[in-house]
Each structure stands twice: as C-alpha cells, then as structure tokens.
C-alpha cells in the first residue's frame, strides 16, 4: 500500500498490454466480408503475428467482427452474441455496409448504421476491405486498447436504454432475456 495509484497504474498497463496482444475474435460471418477473414489469418497475411486468433464461442472472445451488411434478422443473434461476451470486449465494423448501409443503403431489411445498435470501436472502410486494411484496423484497435480508450463496452453499458430502444425498433419479435449486468 505504498502508492495505490501507481500500483494500479502499473497493473493497468500490464493488463492493457495483455489485452492488446491477445485479441480473440469470435468468428461470426454476417455478410460477404467473412471471405476476407481466411486470407487475413493464413500464411499470406498471418494475423497471428499480432496475437489475433479465432475463438469458437463468444464466452472466450474479445472482439466481435461484424463482417459486412447485417440483416435485421441477424442483428438479434449478433446482439445476443455480443452480450454473451465477457468484458472487456470490442466491436469492429467491417466494410462500408456497417457504416452507412453501403450498397444496401435502401434495403428494407438490413440495418444501415451499426453504431446505433452496438458500440463500435473501430470501423474499417472499404467494400470489401482488403486483408491489409483489416490488419490495420486491428492495429488501430490495439492502439486504442493500449491507451485504454477502447471502451465500447462501457458505453454500451451506460447507454443501454438508448441502444435497446434502437434495437427494439428494428427487431419485431423481441424475445430476449434481460441482460443483468
């Protein structure tokens, strides 16, 4: 108990470094962008260099990758997956569809702006973004984590009401269990 503040800081630095260097991605291929993941992970681009690894279940994952357009039907599943992930958790919006709807801008059953429904930490531009872009997006996320700024989960927790309202607007049969923090 010499100096709580410094001790906490050191612990924070170590933890953030660990979080940064070990990003486990829950494999949830929503749209066409999912096809860009295999090249990212395999020998040509080898994302494992940065500690990025796939994970089979959301319980173990840190990063939720929304790979492209997101239909309203899929949104419900994505929300549940996101909520099943453990804090700290990050969302990467992948491709222009997640930013403004992209080529589905006037589709009746895709969502246009992902950040109205989930707290996105990093958007990756492009249609499709190439693996280089994906990796650069991850590196951006790592930087944010290292600085302690990737606090999407925090935001989600604080503005849960607002997010829920938006989510309920698009999802017709809302039969989700309540998220007890």
């Amino acid at each position, binding site marked *: 108990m010499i100096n709580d503040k410094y001790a906490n800081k050191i612990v924070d630095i170590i933890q953030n*470094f*660990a*979080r940064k260097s070990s990003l486990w991605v829950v494999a949830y291929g929503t749209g066409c962008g999912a096809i860009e993941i295999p090249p990212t992970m395999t020998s040509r681009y080898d994302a494992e*260099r*940065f500690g990025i690894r796939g*994970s*089979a279940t959301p*319980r*173990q994952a*840190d990063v939720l990758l929304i790979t492209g357009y997101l239909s309203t039907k899929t949104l419900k599943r994505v929300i549940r997956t996101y909520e099943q992930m453990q804090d700290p958790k990050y969302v990467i919006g992948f491709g222009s569809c997640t930013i403004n709807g992209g080529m589905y801008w006037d589709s009746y059953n895709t969502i246009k702006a992902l950040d109205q429904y989930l707290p996105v930490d990093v958007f990756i531009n492009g249609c499709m973004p190439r693996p280089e872009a994906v990796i650069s997006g991850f590196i951006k996320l790592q930087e944010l984590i290292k600085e302690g700024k990737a606090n999407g989960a925090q935001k989600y927790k604080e503005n849960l009401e607002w997010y829920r309202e938006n989510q309920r607007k698009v999802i017709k049969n809302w039969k989700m269990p309540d998220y007890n923090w």
Partner: protein
Amino acid sequence: MEINWLKVLGILITPVIAFIVGVTYGGLTRIITARIQNRFGPPVTQNFWDIVKLYSKKTNIQHGVMQHLAPVFAITASITTLYFVPVIRESTVFTNLSFQGDLIFLLYIMVFGSLGMALGVGQSGNPNGAIGVSRGLSQMVGYEIPFVLAIVAIMIQFKTTNLNDLIAMQNNFNHWIIFQSPFAFLAAILAFLGMMGYAPFDVVVAPAEIASGPPSEFGGKYLGLMMTSRSIFTFAKLTLFTDIFLGGAGDFVTLVIKTFALYMIPVLTGIVNPRFRTEQSIRFFWAWPTVFGILAVLIVVW
C-alpha cells in the same frame, strides 16, 4: 516433526517452473506450427499474454458451483501430479513427494482433473460441452489400454511401481527403458498422442464441430486457470514420460531437451494430420498400439 525447508522450497517453486516451461512450450508450438504453415507466427510469449488477458477480464460468468470449481479440480490434479513426479533425478528439491506415491497412483490422479472438468462442463449446460466430454471419455477408454499395457510391462520388468526406482535403474544411457523395452515405449507414446489431444486425436475440442467442446462455456478467469493448469499438466506428463522411458533428467537442461523432444512428437504429428472421428480414434488405439503393448508384456514375460 522436522521440516525439510529444501522440500518446501521445491514444493513452492516446482509449479512455477512447470508453468513457465509449459507456457513457453505452448508458445514454441505455435511458432513451429506457423513456420510449417509458412507463416511467421506469434511471439513466444503469446500464450502467457493470453493467460494474463483471460485473468484480467472484467466480467466472468458461471452456471453454478461445479463450473466454478472445475478449473480448480483441473489445476489441483495438475499440481498434485507434478508433486508426485520426480522432476530432477536424485535432487532433494525437485523430487517433491514422489516417494509417497507410485505409478498407479499417478495414473489415477491424472484422471482427477478430467473428472472435475467434466463435472464443471456438465453444469454449464452446454450440449456441445457434454458432447466433448462424451468424446473425451470415450477416447480415454481407447488410449488407456496401450498405456496400461506399457506401464504394466515396465512394472513387471523392473519389479517396482515407484518412479524413483525406475529412474535409478536407468542410470546409464543404454539402460533407458526406451531401449530396453521399445514396444512398451511405442505403445505408450501412441497413447501419449491421444492423451495430449492434438490432431488427429482432437475430437474433444474440435472447434469447428462442437464450438471447442468442453470449455465452450468457460471464459475469463476460469479459462485462464484452465490454461494454466494445462501448461503445468503438459510439463508434468512430459516429465513423467521422460522419467519412465528416458531415464529422467539430472539437471534442467537435460530435462528441457528430453521433454521438448518428447513434446515434439504429438505436436508434429498434429500439424500434418486431419482429425479422426471418435470411433476411428478409439479403434486406432485398440489396434496397433494395443498389439505393441501386448508384445511388450509378452517379451517381458519370456
């Protein structure tokens, strides 16, 4: 009662050493895998950071007390196994409690962790987990036969069930059991492949099939503890095999060389192989490895 402080020291630091070695081996494995796949691979410390990250998760969930305790069971088994295996030959510090137990005890205590894990997985209520456990237990029935045959052959041959005695008998290079009883080694090492759970015997975790199976509901600190336990357990098993077949180790360098060499067998097998189905895996163990085991016993008997 007089307390041997050196022993206490050994008891305290052996798990730490085991953890470090295990984690490093894990990292190396990933690098080697990457290199074989023509990739660069993660840093060697990657597994360590993974574990730290898991411990530093801000939220954790559990489905009940058994899931809470499951990783504890696992790590208890790992550490206890480690304590009852002589790490360094004839060392006061690193033989720990190995004089208090014997091989059959080790066979059983190694199951303790799996049992605890299985219980935790059961409580998590995830059907994938249960499927994984079912596969794991079935496969265990498979590889246990050749392994026991090998162990029995050795125990009969050397008329002891204590590891220290076994090590003492292999005091010379050409007395290693791997040379004295090669069929036993073959049987045991094939069983060892199954025990380690690398491909082609990775039906248990099979990530693409059953969402990583047993640990699918474990996250955060629980998964961290499980990974810690796995690192320690890997080291313990490797040391055990080294003690049995390669004459143990007189110092840490020899230990690392021998264990690493042993470790590479399942790893390299795993990299180049696809996955068996469960029944294929079981039948594999009941075929050649068992024959080797029986041969080993028969040779000893004659």
